[in-house]
Structures are given as structure tokens and as C-alpha cells.
């Protein structure tokens, strides 16, 4: 985390001249000096860094160069949109992914399995933006049943603007979340399938069969439990990837989330937003990793009770 903060900070300071961007190149020399003083840019580096950290912890990320607004406000505004999108996509990807993965792992050679596999392959080969465009073309332009941009109507719950509670909100959610989840879903399917196939060839499964345990119990109880462990690790990385890919999806669908904000920031070299985004995202990643580690601990007894009498 500290590393990320430092990188953001250095960006902030050493890259380009923030004052120039903010006041415009034409501003007089005195004006620039004034701003510099206010921003504390004349202080030595370590003071600036600690101030930066202090600010960050309080949620103050500075002011956007381009949009001339408080970055923290911008983020707070955009975050619900992204988080809702990511949440729905994650749910879709994992639930459907696991179900299909288990199915294709158990019924290795059936026709249905092969169809699922081919389709999943498409999911990996199609860049997200192409999927988005295709879906828009199909459902919005040709069929006209789903909106091609925006979030629909939102309901304000405290500071959180949610699209879950309106029909148009939900409708607007469909295409982007499908687009976003497709890539991850196919990844999950292939992972679960590979795991299941490998597990079904282990000795303990063979031993279970030798004891006469029924096939269904073996497949859905023994094999599945073992197979889910890597899925948990993947989920952590999943959410991270989804947040990243949301940048693309939000661009295609003009979804007003953090991703769109970030892309524009990169385009306009709007450093405060970039650094703020990086810090936010890094924070979310670290949290997720931590949660995954803890979950792992509770699920795998080998880690929990490492008493081995050899």
C-alpha cells in the first residue's frame, strides 16, 4: 500500500507541472508563485509526502486539474455505479461459471459440454469492448429492447445512488454486466473444469468409488468441495480484474462510474484523479486479498490445524 501511495505521490509531484495545468499557462508569474505557496510545493519532499498521506487518510485527494472539483467528491459520486456493476458481474461470473464448470468437468465428453466449451472459448478470445459493441448492436439497435448507454433512473439512499430499485435502472444494468462478466465467466468455467477433471482422477476419489459411495455423492460432495478451493483464490483476483475491465465497459456503455473517470483522466493527464484512483483500487485489492486469505484459512483444515505427526 505504501508503495502505491508513494508512486501516486511522485506522479503528483514530479510529473508535469501541476501549477501550470491548474492556472493555465498564461497566468502571471506572481499568481503561480502564490498557488505554489498555497499548495505547499516549496516544502521539502518528505514533508510533502507526509502531508499527502495525511490527506489521503482523511479522504482528501486534492483537486482535479481538469474538472476543477474535489477529487474525493468525484469519486464518491462515481463509486456506487462502478461497485454495483462489478458486484452484479461478479455474481454472474462466479455462479454461472461454477455451475457450468462443474457440469463440463463431470460430463467430460457430452455434446452439451463441448458446446459450452466452444462458447466459453469465444469469451476468452473476444475483447470485452467488442462484446459490448456487439451486444449494443444486437439489443439496442436491432432489437431495441435494452438501453445502450447510461444508468437509467437512480434512487438516492443516503450518499449511495442505486440503480437496483428502478426498472430502468435494472434494465440498464443488464448489458454492461453481461459484457463485463463474460470474460471472467469463461475463465471460471475453464478453471473449475480443469480442477474437477484432475480431482476425479485422484486416489481418494478412486478409494471412495471402491467403497461403493454413490456416483452423485462422489461428484457433488467429495470432488466439489476439493474443487472449490482454487475458486476462492480466483474470486479475489476476479473482483480485481472486474474493476479493471469495468473501465472498458464503462467506456463502451457510457456508464458513469470510476472507470470512465479514470480513462478521461489518463487522456487529459489529470494527475490527481489518476493517483486517487490508483490508491482506491490498491486499497480495494489489498482488502480483497486479506478477505480471501482469511476465508482460505477457515475452509482448508490443513492450514488451520497444521499439526503433523510424521
Amino acid at each position, binding site marked *: 500500500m505504501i508503495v502505491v501511495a508513494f508512486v501516486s505521490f511522485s506522479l503528483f509531484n514530479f510529473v508535469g507541472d501541476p501549477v501550470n495545468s491548474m492556472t493555465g499557462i498564461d497566468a502571471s508569474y506572481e499568481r503561480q508563485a502564490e498557488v505554489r505557496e498555497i499548495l505547499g510545493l516549496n516544502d521539502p519532499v518528505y514533508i510533502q509526502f507526509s502531508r499527502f498521506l495525511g490527506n489521503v487518510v482523511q479522504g482528501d485527494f486534492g483537486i482535479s486539474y481538469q474538472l476543477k472539483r474535489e477529487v474525493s467528491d468525484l469519486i464518491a459520486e462515481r463509486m456506487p455505479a462502478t461497485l454495483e456493476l462489478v458486484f452484479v458481474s461478479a455474481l454472474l461470473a462466479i455462479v454461472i461459471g461454477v455451475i457450468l464448470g462443474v457440469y463440463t468437468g463431470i460430463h467430460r465428453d457430452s455434446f452439451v459440454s463441448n458446446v459450452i466449451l466452444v462458447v466459453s472459448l469465444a469469451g476468452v478470445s473476444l475483447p470485452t469492448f467488442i462484446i459490448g459493441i456487439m451486444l449494443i448492436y444486437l439489443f439496442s439497435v436491432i432489437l431495441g429492447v435494452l438501453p445502450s448507454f447510461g444508468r437509467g433512473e437512480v434512487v438516492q439512499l443516503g450518499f449511495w445512488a442505486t440503480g437496483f430499485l428502478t426498472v430502468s435502472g435494472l434494465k440498464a444494468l443488464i448489458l454492461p454486466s453481461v459484457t463485463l462478466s463474460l470474460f471472467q465467466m469463461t475463465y471460471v468455467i475453464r478453471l473449475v473444469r480443469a480442477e474437477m477433471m484432475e480431482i476425479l482422477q485422484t*486416489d481418494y476419489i478412486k478409494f471412495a468409488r*471402491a467403497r461403493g459411495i454413490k456416483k452423485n455423492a462422489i461428484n457433488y460432495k467429495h470432488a466439489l468441495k476439493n474443487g472449490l478451493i482454487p475458486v476462492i483464490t480466483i474470486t479475489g483476483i476476479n473482483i480485481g480484474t472486474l474493476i479493471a475491465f469495468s473501465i472498458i465497459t464503462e467506456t463502451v456503455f457510457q456508464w458513469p462510474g470510476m472507470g470512465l473517470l479514470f480513462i478521461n483522466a489518463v487522456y487529459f493527464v489529470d494527475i490527481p484523479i489518476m493517483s486517487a484512483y490508483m490508491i482506491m483500487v490498491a486499497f480495494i485489492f489489498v482488502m480483497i486479498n486479506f478477505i480471501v486469505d482469511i476465508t482460505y484459512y477457515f475452509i482448508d483444515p490443513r492450514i488451520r490445524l497444521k499439526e*503433523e505427526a510424521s
Partner: protein
Amino acid sequence: MDERRLKSKIKNKMSLLKVKNLNISYPTRKETIVASKDVEFTLERGEILGIVGESGSGKSTIANAIINLIDPPGEITSGSIKIDNDELRDNEELIQEIRGKKIGFVFQDPQTSLNPLFKIKDQLIETIQTHLNLDYQDALKKSIQLLEEVGIDNAEKRIEDYPHQFSGGMRQRVVIALAISCEPDLIIADEPTTALDVSIQHQILELLKDLTKKRNLGVMIITHDMGVIAETTDKVIVMRHGLIVEQGDTKELLTNPKSNEARSLVISVPPTNKKIDRFKLISPDGKEITSDSKNLTKDIIKTWGARENTNQKLLELSGVTKIFDDKSLVSNFSFGSKNETAAKVVKAVDNVSFELFEGETLGLVGESGSGKSTIAKIITGLVRPTNGEIFYNNLSLYNSKRKYQIDKSRGQVQMIFQDPYSSLNPRFKVRDIISEPIRLFQKNISSSELTKNLYDLIDIVGMSRQSLDRYPHEFSGGQRQRISIARALATRPRLLICDEPTSALDVSIQAQVLNLLKDIQDELHLAMLFISHDLPVIRQMCNRIVVLKNGIVCETKESEELFNNPEHPYTQELIRLMPKIESII
């Protein structure tokens, strides 16, 4: 009443298991491998049948076939398998019913047989409830009883544990408990003790014999160990290349083997009660090979130059200790859990001292965890000792910073390893494998001289010169060990360390390789450090023996004296417990 009595009478007359004309094949894309051909035998209740044969003979396949668990693409092509006169073939329903209920199976590796994520309790109860009509409480009670029956103390508490919390031997007991949980009539055990130490092996085999008597079971044991056969089985079947070459009463067969294969097996087994000069071999046409030392190394001694044969002290270990501490970070997650997880500290080698003289063979014997392999690694610089001194030729091998001084022993200490499948780099041709050490020590060797060396070496180990241009995977286990020996000899070592060199080989191949080692040692006046857990082999190979337990030296003696007069209680136990083929003759 009469009908039932009649039925049970009939039952007692028919065999428990009757296999007839069993044919199993594995169709691969190149050819169809015949795993078993026209196999026929019977097994009665209260009887222990052993199936013995070298690797690839098809014994495991037969066992798997009975409950129809052959790994695909293998399949039974014809034949009949009857349990109490019920035909099993093509009757998937019946087989499903019988698995676990009438037939209990025990696999070889206790580490991988149990599902690591489920408690022992759950695995037992699940099995019981699948076949018997018991509610949870009754099933639980029965499970605890079973664990007690197989000799697990504190069963009520231990049933709540997970598999990894048991040691190897205990795990195998759990596996046996699972196998007998639904009151089967037949138990099939596929190499049940191969992965276990001698003392544990003995216990497990006694347990099986016990159960057979108590419950009137029929038991089929598959093994490659003749000692086990001698001590445990009533009847035995000898298999080779998928065919039954001989079968009959165990005592009969072992005292008087008729077929060549059986004779070869019996005769190659290292005797446990005396020392012989060389291991006996049977050639394929049935005659005993009495070859004398073949003067193998004449050529290479010419090339290398003769070496003086003194009998000086070559190697000395003094107070060597090695402590492994497991710096695992898992202990961070203790969270005050009920089981303590301190960083694991293992004292692999504890104050070990011994000497080795030129021309002699010193044996290091002990079970797993005795530290014998670690000692070998310390001598060759693969592992650093925590304490103590190692002297080669009176020079210390480790400097004050505990760094291995390889120049002190340059190429004079060599090693051959246990696993023939990982001791040769699969991507190198044999000639490159053997020439690498030569080129390392003789940087400017001409290519013709190199080739001469290669030819000499490959001749010594008894392999063809064409082998030089092939890859390791084209050779069998025994041949690969020979290549390893050639590689080891390439630097003209004075000390050859053999770390379980034949433990992975079939008994007749073992005899050949050990004879080779003996011959080479004689002619080159090599000192040998021979490491093994196999007492009969150690007896045959070594002049003196060091017995190790948990890293501590129990006893150091001349071999014959050790076997005739063991002093240390551990040594006495080891000797008592080792499976002896002579026990039955």
C-alpha cells in the same frame, strides 16, 4: 429353516472368489498391451492369497479388475469373476452394490487415499450409511469401534481429526477400518505396506492376519516383497507379463519353485540369515548364473593409471548434527487455535560419528526419518551441517563458515541415487550425461579420448555402446541405474555413496545391480557407503554397519556380528521384524 441351512451349506462349498479366463488389455494408439491373459484362480474364506510378480506383471490390474476399477483405456475383454457364485462381469449394478459391502479395498499409498478435507468421522459414517441401514448415532458408535479394532488409541477423540493429522501407519489403519466397515467377506490389499517402515509394516500385516481369522475373511494381498509373502500368505500366485506362471501353497512354492520365474524370484531374494558372496541369478532359460568377477575394469584402469591400494581412513564424521527448522509462516495464523503450531524444528542428524576406510563397504541402515539420506547429503555438500566436522583424507570438508570445500574432494566422492526415473536428465542423451563430469574435470580432453572413456564406462556397467546415443526414457529402471553408476565412475571416485540404489527395482534386477556394484568395488578398490532400509541387502553388501534411529547412532558393528548378536534394543527389534523368506522354508 432347511432352505437357509442348505444355502449356507452351499455357500461354504463354493469359493468366495472365483476368477476364470480373465483377459485384460489396454488399447493404446500404437498397439494393444495385454495386461493379463487367461488368469484363473480361486480364494476361500479364511485364506490369505498372495499375488507376487515384478512390476508390469499385471498383479495390480487383476485386483482392480475384480471391482471394475481399471484405469481407462484398460478393459476386461473376456473372462468371468464370481463372488459366491454371482457373476460380476457386465453386472454394473451388482458391482456397485458389492463395492465396500462385500469387497473391501486397500490401496498402497495412505497419503493419498483419504480425502484431505473431510474428517475421519465423516468418511467412516458416510461409508457405513451407504451400505448399512444405520442411523447417525449407531454409525458413529460403529465407527469408533472400528478404529479401536484396527488399533488406534483414543478412538473417540481421534475420530474428529483430519487425515493429515495421522502418521502414515495410522492412516493405513484408518484405510483398513474403512475397508472392513461394512462387514465385507473379501479384502483386496494392493501393496498395502510398501510405503511403510518395517516395524509398521509388521503391525499392519499382523492386523490383517488377525482380521482374517476373527472375521473369517478371504484376503488377497498384492506385493512384490517375497518376505511378506512368506510370512503372511497361505497360497501364492506368481505372475509375469500378465500370465500366471505358477501358483500353489506358499510353503511348497517357496521351497520348491518349479517355473523359471518363480525360481528367479526366490533365488534373487537376499538371504537374511547368512552372508553370501554374490547374489544368485537365474538366466532366462533356467540355469543358475555363476559368473565370476568379469575383469570389467581392466581397460579403464589402463586409461586412468593404476592407483595405490592403501587401506587408510578415507572418511570421518565427528559429532555431526543437522537441525532443520521449518520457517513456515503459517504459525502466524494460530489465533489461539487448540493445536499448537510452533515453527517445526527437526533434528535430522544428532551427533553422528563414524569412520570409513578405503576398500570397505560401510552400511547406514535405518527407517524413514533416521537421517541416513541427510548424512549422505552432508558428505556431498548438498546440505550444510549445523555442527560437527567431516574429514575426507584428513582434510576438513567444510570451512569455518560452514561452506562446502568442493576442491578438497574434487570428484572423488560420488553418489548414486534411489529413483532411477529422476536421476537422469530426460533431455540429455546418455553420452552427454556421462561425459559432463568428465569434461568438467578434464577441460581439454580430446574428443577421441572422451569417446574412449565413454566406451570403457558403458562397457563396465554392462550396457551396449549404442545406448550412448539414446535418451533415458528408452531404458528400464535397472538400466537407468547402470547409467547412473557409469556417470558416477566417470570422475574416478574413491568413495561411492549409494543411497538406496535398488529400493525402486524389482528383486531380480536388484540382484544384478548389486552384483555389479560388488564387482566394481572389488576391482577399483572403492570405498562404499551403502544406505538402505532393507536389512538383508545391507547384510549382503556391507562389511560394517551403522544403525540409525531418529538421527542417532544406535550401534556400529561388523555385519555378521550385528546380525548374530545385536546389542541395541532397536537393532534387535529391526532384525526381529524384518520379513524373512526363510521363515517358511
